[in-house]
């Protein structure tokens, strides 16, 4: 493997081997292989419909919920295949959290949103829940904006605040990997830059994989970049390599703006 994770670099957190994803008879991902380095931000880029969202959703078994979707191949998390029959997808999603394109806060209070995960995983004490809520909201850079109204509905927050709340909600369950599917695509530039700053902070403690339709965003926040086209993983490299000296002609065409 060429890229950020070779040559004595950081430890390999996830490894995708020979992944194929089908929706019915349509093949959305073809023979993808990828190493994901620990405590790094890996960006997935490519034109619309290239399969990058399909790929990221296969990393924590979200396709289990899609009727007709089928994932082949292996996705290793610390050396263990998350698609092995003995593995419980609920445990997988506990360790690999996900933030979605559109903020999806539950119709509950801000506090209840953040402590939802810890509660279902068995944390009962109110004091501990309050601590987790503050810690997670601080980590998501939202605490100062909401600390006086934790019992207000999460739906009263702005779009950018809602998305950071969703990040706080994921942080509260202390996953090891955070998957983000175009988390800023529905946000204005100021909210987007807050999310980007936040991602830079998150990689100290977590491994981040992010889908983005914005090449500028990938260049700003990621350590390594993966280029997808028509369901194929075309090229992986450090972000600076991909954006300055791509090896594949198709990657170069995309980053220089010759594809939509």
């Amino acid at each position, binding site marked *: 493997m060429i890229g950020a994770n070779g040559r004595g670099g950081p430890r390999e957190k996830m490894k995708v081997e020979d992944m194929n994803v089908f929706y019915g008879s349509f093949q959305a991902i073809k023979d993808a292989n990828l190493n994901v380095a620990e405590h790094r931000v890996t960006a997935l880029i490519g034109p619309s419909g290239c399969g990058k969202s399909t790929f990221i959703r296969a990393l924590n078994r*979200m396709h289990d*919920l899609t009727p007709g979707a089928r994932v082949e191949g292996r996705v290793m998390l610390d050396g263990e295949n998350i698609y092995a029959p003995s593995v419980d997808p609920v*445990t997988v999603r506990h360790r690999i959290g996900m933030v979605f394109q559109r903020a999806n806060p539950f119709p509950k209070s801000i506090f209840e949103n953040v402590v*939802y995960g810890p509660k*279902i995983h068995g944390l009962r004490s109110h004091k501990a829940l309050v601590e987790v809520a503050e810690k997670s909201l601080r980590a998501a850079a939202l605490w100062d904006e909401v600390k006086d109204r934790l019992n207000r509905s999460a739906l009263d927050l702005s779009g950018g605040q809602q998305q950071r709340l969703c990040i706080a909600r994921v942080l509260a*369950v202390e996953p090891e990997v955070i998957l983000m599917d175009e988390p800023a695509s529905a946000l204005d530039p100021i909210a987007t830059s807050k999310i980007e700053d936040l991602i830079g902070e998150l990689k100290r403690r977590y491994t981040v994989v992010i889908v983005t339709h914005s090449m500028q965003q990938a260049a700003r926040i990621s350590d390594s970049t993966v280029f997808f086209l028509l369901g194929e993983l075309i090229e992986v490299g450090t972000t600076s390599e991909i954006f300055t000296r791509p090896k594949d002609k198709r990657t170069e065409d995309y980053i220089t703006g010759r594809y939509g």
Partner: protein
Amino acid sequence: MIAGNANNAHRNESVALALLKSASAFFIVSIVVLLGYLTFEGTKLFTVDHKSIFEFLFSPTFSPDTGQVGAAPFILGSLFVTGFAIAVGGPFGLAVGVFFSELAPPRVAAAMKPAIEVLVGIPSVVYGWLGLTLLVPLIRNMTGSTGFGLLSAGIVLSLMILPTVISLAEDAMRVVPNSLREGSLALGATRWETISRVLVPAARSGLAVAVILGIARAIGEALAIQMVLGNSPTIPHGLLNAASALTSEIVMDMGGAIQGSVTQHALFSMALLLLLIAMSLIVLVKFVVRRAT
């Protein structure tokens, strides 16, 4: 040529508009007339016959020929069978609706949806007939009573409202955005945790509407319960006692009630009371829905 077409279009449009307007006007007028007539006739018991509203609502004796117009047995009968139906059919219907929306294999759910909608449309006389031929003998054999009574009527009504509650509950669950399902599961929640802690609370107003419309269906049902209730105009003392409801009493006595008699006025008052109950249930639905949005 262009101008001619435009004129034609204008003419067609104004004709269509006039049709729609007159149809709406006709509809509104008929509703107003109906409400006015029912209110006018339904209050004669108090204005013409000078009976007290208090007696009508709370007296246990209904014998209009001797001037006693207590409708309490019927009001209690209606409340009881409706309460029974909603206590049994409500939770069961909600559970099945949630099951079809969230847990059933998609193919099963797709096949059941139209089946349940057909059940909603089964005429009530069919439910009554099945109650009369299956349920009443069964209860008679098991308990030694006549088989007619509150229990039979309650069970028949429970079954009758079930398709309504299931169908509406399933719809209420299906309109919960999929993003909430994904959001919860992506936090490592199980399907059951997702259903019980996120989806059902998110759908609660829709589920409440399903139950309220189930109540509305039950309180207005006449034929099916009249066939199995035993129709005794007294306050029942047990589940196996024969009883009457507001609706079944109207069905029973309407043929023999002389125009302008106290009996007829009392029946009109019962009809008015049913209308008021139904209207307050609809207002309640509006309230629940508005509060949710």
